[in-house]
């Protein structure tokens, strides 16, 4: 279906990534926001608080991040498209209930504007060290979907996608901005409402008295009932059967949890997005995401001037990981160079998928700034000499 024009502020704007993500959320139909301000994500919450009165949304500044994530889960079951935004220690506080959202199969969006860590770290400065936390930061087995925008325009576009994927797969979806993208101001074009596709909620049409909240079909995603639709149903974070009632047994655990994982994994081709440039036929392929992807391209230009055959692979989604394509490329190239503002996270994913078919090298950065393109160039040069 098309976006509700009420929430779409069509036009050309000069916006930072945080505010662009807020506009993306509102365009996608978000009408409930609960959050607790934390740098560098505050502009997103602030912008939503300014815009929600115009669109009839509910904004609550909660007492903390635990309450914020819990409130958006409740709001989703109450019928709203809901979101929270946070950073650093705030994401860590939200982790328990991101697991609850995954377990209850609650569509909702969590934006994390990554800053330098661990702990309070570098509140006002950039980091990309939360990517593994985004995958498995909550306890137990689950899969998640995560986007990584490299510009304010993509902060808008990817937040819309995040809401759509949350509905389609009934899962929490993360938008992993970084401080640099969150705070940089660039041109953002917001299209007309009829050019924005919005995924409808998968609501049940079961007869009253016959609704089973966790019965599912081939796509492994159950249909949802919202409070107020007239169905009697129960949801719980405990291992539950198709009625949604707790059943703590090996049998039920094996019925439920593999499906939570499989519903994302079996649809990875539908979810995964990446950009590729000259990767076929290259000696070295640079893998990067977020702001690091932009800086990497400067290094690639420098390497090409030296005559090195370099390809580029940018993750638009980080989770699920593009395992198949990385494995294919590994057979053809000498080395991957992974550029990220952390000390090796996606690096290990690439290395895992490469299965020793080529070298995998890391261009690390501890955080607080972006890479110096010359530092990336040195790693590319090393990769070109591999084998």
């Amino acid at each position, binding site marked *: 279906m098309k976006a509700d024009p009420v929430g779409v502020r069509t036009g050309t704007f000069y916006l930072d990534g945080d505010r662009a993500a807020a506009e993306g959320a509102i365009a996608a139909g978000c009408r409930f926001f609960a959050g607790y301000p934390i*740098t560098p994500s505050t502009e997103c919450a602030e912008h939503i608080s300014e815009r929600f009165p115009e669109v009839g949304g509910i904004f609550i500044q909660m007492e903390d991040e635990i309450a914020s994530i819990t409130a958006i889960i409740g709001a989703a079951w109450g019928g709203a498209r809901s979101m929270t935004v946070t950073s650093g220690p705030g994401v860590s506080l939200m982790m328990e209930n991101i697991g609850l959202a995954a377990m209850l199969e609650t569509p909702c969006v969590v934006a994390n504007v990554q800053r330098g860590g661990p702990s309070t770290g570098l509140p006002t400065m950039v980091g990309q060290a939360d990517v593994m936390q985004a995958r498995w930061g909550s306890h137990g087995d689950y899969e998640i979907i995560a986007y990584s925008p490299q510009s304010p325009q993509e902060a808008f576009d990817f937040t819309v996608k995040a809401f759509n994927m949350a509905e389609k797969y009934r899962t929490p979806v993360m938008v992993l901005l970084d401080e640099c993208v969150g*705070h*940089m101001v*660039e*041109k953002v074009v917001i299209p007309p409402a009829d050019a924005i596709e919005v995924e409808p909620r998968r609501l049940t049409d079961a007869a009253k008295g016959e609704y089973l909240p966790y019965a599912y079909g081939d796509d492994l995603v159950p249909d949802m009932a919202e409070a107020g639709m007239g169905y009697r149903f129960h949801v719980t974070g405990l291992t539950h059967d198709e009625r949604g009632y707790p059943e703590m047994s090996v049998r039920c655990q094996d019925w439920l949890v593999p499906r939570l994982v499989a519903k994302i994994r079996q649809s990875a081709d539908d979810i995964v997005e990446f950009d590729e440039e000259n990767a076929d036929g290259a000696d070295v392929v640079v893998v990067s995401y977020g702001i690091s992807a*932009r*800086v990497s391209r*400067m290094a690639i230009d420098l390497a090409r001037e030296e005559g090195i055959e370099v390809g580029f692979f940018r993750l638009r989604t980080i989770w699920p990981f593009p395992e198949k394509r990385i494995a294919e490329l590994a057979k053809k190239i000498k080395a991957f160079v992974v550029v990220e503002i952390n000390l090796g996270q996606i690096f290990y994913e690439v290395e895992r998928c490469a299965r020793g078919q080529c070298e995998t090298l890391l261009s690390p950065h501890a955080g607080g700034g972006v890479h110096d393109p010359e530092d990336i160039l040195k790693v590319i040069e090393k990769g070109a000499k591999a084998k």
Partner: protein
Amino acid sequence: MRREIRITGFGGQGVILSGVIVGKAASIYDEKNATMSQSYGPEARGSACSTQILVDDKEILYPYIRESDVLVAMSQEGYTKFLGELKADGVLIYDEDLVNPGEIKKGIKAYPIKAQRIAETDLGRKIVTNIVILGFMTAVTKAVPKEAMVEAIKTSVPKGTIELNLKAFERGYDAFREGAGEQVEEGSGARSGAE
């Protein structure tokens, strides 16, 4: 061609708004790419404050200043902090009532203006000092076309102040033109830009 512009002053002078206007003018009204970011942290409140704007025909890959082409200084502290990143042949624009540049290195093209005084005495509102200096910068550097700057001002300043801001911009722009007959020699150091 990539141009890197730093505008610095103290909190309250409208430094950040100036950055937004330049970036918006370049990216929305001149169809170039422009990335703007601001100093962010405790220093932004009351003391030194700065914004950086990168303007390019091509996509902007590196998001920060590496070597600035233009430094606009509205405070002594900002001037001292950011002079070091200015290119050897960069353009320095400063309010001479607010900044004592000391000895300016050979090669740097310096353009002083009494922007705050113009805003206070000619326009009666000190608050438009930043717009006066933006007008002056537009005339000096031609980094962004005048028409684009005017459009960006109209859509960025509070309603009810558009006329005053446009007047301030024109006044700053003309301040350079009035002194435009003077020859700027490469490496001649400071010159008198305008009163």
